[in-house]
């Protein structure tokens, strides 16, 4: 049974009298305890996808069509009280900048207790005990002292730990982490990643990690979804995607990493940049930047095909697979 299933999700933005598509036909499923990463450049729609799962897409954006089901309950049509039940309790989010997420004029403790008490009817004292226990579980030293401190008194890594503690308060089934370590140093990043991994494993929570750092993704996620210009272009097991990327965009992303080139040599850059919402090209959106683009790519949108254990939306891969089949047929004849 799938915990979360997103199918044919379309999210549009109504801007300057135009209806612009930010997410086009996005489908995926998340099982209990599974860790999925969503990667892509800025503007690919990764964060919008994260927001739309908890129905947080704000005006001028709206969910145009498609469904998001949390254990057979449709999220897109829920009323606000129902949504509030889902947010935090079933699906929790971690954002990029911990300073923006925490309220600067309230102590850590007040914010944690508020989160518990808004979902369950318990006394302040009990809530405080739960909060301190959770702060302890995210390896914050002397949680009793931190409980009464303000966010600015903590370092960046500590703040992100507090956020993770907040997320854990209500034992959600799914954690959506939107670039949780981008604002942190490498050493702190390694600790936070390890912490997230341990938490997900120990409590069998599912994780949806939104990131552009493929190194982080390879450490955390079991499956990876690559997005480009609002569409999913490749999906598969993380190891498979990293070792044998099929889509030219995934290949480009991996090749652009400095560790993929010899020291001192030029890096393999992807030409051009992500098109803005109002300038999405026809056909396959990646064709202006793709070294293998043909006329077919310029006119038609490729559909998903299975290539090994991954699914890819690319005509080139499709042709290669068809050719391989033809060869097989000829050989068998």
């Amino acid at each position, binding site marked *: 049974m799938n915990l979360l299933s997103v199918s044919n999700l379309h999210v549009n933005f109504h801007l300057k009298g135009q209806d612009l598509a930010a997410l086009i036909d996005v489908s995926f499923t998340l099982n209990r305890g599974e860790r999925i990463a969503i990667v892509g450049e800025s503007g690919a729609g990764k964060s919008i996808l994260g927001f739309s799962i908890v129905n947080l897409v704000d005006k001028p954006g709206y969910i145009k069509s498609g469904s998001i089901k949390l254990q057979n309950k449709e999220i897109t049509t829920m009323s606000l009280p129902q949504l509030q039940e889902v947010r935090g309790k079933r699906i929790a989010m971690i954002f990029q900048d911990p300073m923006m997420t925490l309220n600067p004029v309230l102590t850590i403790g007040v914010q944690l207790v508020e989160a518990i008490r808004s979902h369950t009817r318990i006394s302040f004292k009990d809530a405080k005990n739960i909060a301190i226990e959770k702060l302890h579980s995210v390896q914050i030293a002397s949680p009793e002292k931190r409980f009464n401190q303000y966010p600015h008194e903590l370092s960046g890594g500590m703040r992100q730990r507090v956020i993770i503690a907040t997320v854990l308060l209500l034992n959600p089934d799914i954690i959506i982490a939107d670039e949780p370590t981008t604002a942190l140093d490498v*050493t702190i990043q390694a600790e936070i990643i390890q912490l997230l991994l341990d938490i997900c494993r120990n409590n069998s929570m599912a994780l949806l990690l939104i990131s552009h750092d493929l*190194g982080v993704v*390879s450490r955390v996620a079991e499956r990876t979804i690559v997005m480009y210009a609002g569409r999913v272009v490749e999906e598969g097991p993380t190891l498979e995607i990293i070792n044998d990327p099929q889509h030219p965009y995934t290949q480009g992303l991996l090749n652009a990493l*400095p560790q993929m080139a010899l020291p*001192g040599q*030029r890096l393999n850059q992807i030409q051009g940049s992500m098109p803005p919402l109002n300038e999405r090209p026809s056909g396959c959106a990646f064709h202006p930047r793709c070294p293998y683009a043909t006329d077919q790519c310029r006119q038609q949108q490729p559909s998903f095909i299975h290539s090994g254990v991954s699914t890819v939306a690319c005509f080139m891969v499709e042709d290669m697979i068809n050719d391989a089949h033809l060869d097989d047929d000829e050989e068998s004849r």
Partner: protein
Amino acid sequence: MPTPLIQISHLEKSFTTNKSWFGQWQIDRGKIRRKKDSVHALNGVNLTINQGETLCVVGETGCGKSTLARVLMGLTPASSGEVHYQDQRIDHLNDRQRMLFRRRMQMVFQNPYASLNPRMTVYQTLSEPISFHNPQLSASQVDEKIHALLESVGISPSSMDNYPNEFSGGQRQRISLARALSVEPDFIIADEPLSALDVSVQAQVLNLMMDKQEERNLTYLFITHDLAVVEHFATRVAVMYLGRVCELASTSTLFSAPKHPYTKALLSAIPRLDNNTTQPIRLMGEVPTQMDKPIGCVFQARCPYANPRCYKESPEMIRQPDNSTVACHAVDEGRL
């Protein structure tokens, strides 16, 4: 033998944290005393930057890497110590001298959204430094120069009357680089120029910087916390911790045989694509802020190898057999 371009010796910088003069007076055991709280951002940095090389400075937030860049550029005055550019001492220039001196060194900042003036077109942004430093040029010559400059960084000269908000992050960082190159400097300080950019755009900017270095024989001081970029781009690497350089080595030496315990921890924390099994070395706690001048080694509080000597005596930079220099008692004593 490489020729040194910049020599930094015993550079120190501290910032006072008291806001007002009144706030500095405190009653201490019945007496009124004046007390200045200060953060020691740089604690005696010694570095030599050679001509034509890329020196990368790495370290965690708060280790003083950006302060080092700002002091070198003269954006903040140093508390003590000296900076020499070839034969000239540059840390005590007056404003006018410094303005003229900026022709020799330029800076590229971290955030291209904040470092370009949103009310100036690209043309204005670039023409200002060019006509200031080359007053003899006519308007058409300046135009020509800007055309060539924009083309060389891959921005179409037709868009030179656009404002910065019309460009993407990568394009803005190219314009920043064009602005730095406009006065034809020998030395460019880049303070985390890639951290606001996507991987693919990072590659574009990094390639551009490498091309320009080859073309003009530039020297870079490159400040970053992305060690994958360092490994690819740097000639030598200086690892900083709490205002001190703790290890200085050529890139290949540093990455193949890191010596300082902090460098080891830092390198093990890089998320890599290939080795999923290696566990990062965990450092206890986070970088402390430097309110008091450190006694002993700056890394003592988080170091797993610290012994009593480390708490008393500050380690000196000692040259190792493989030509790297390391400031660590444990390495010196052969305990590590």
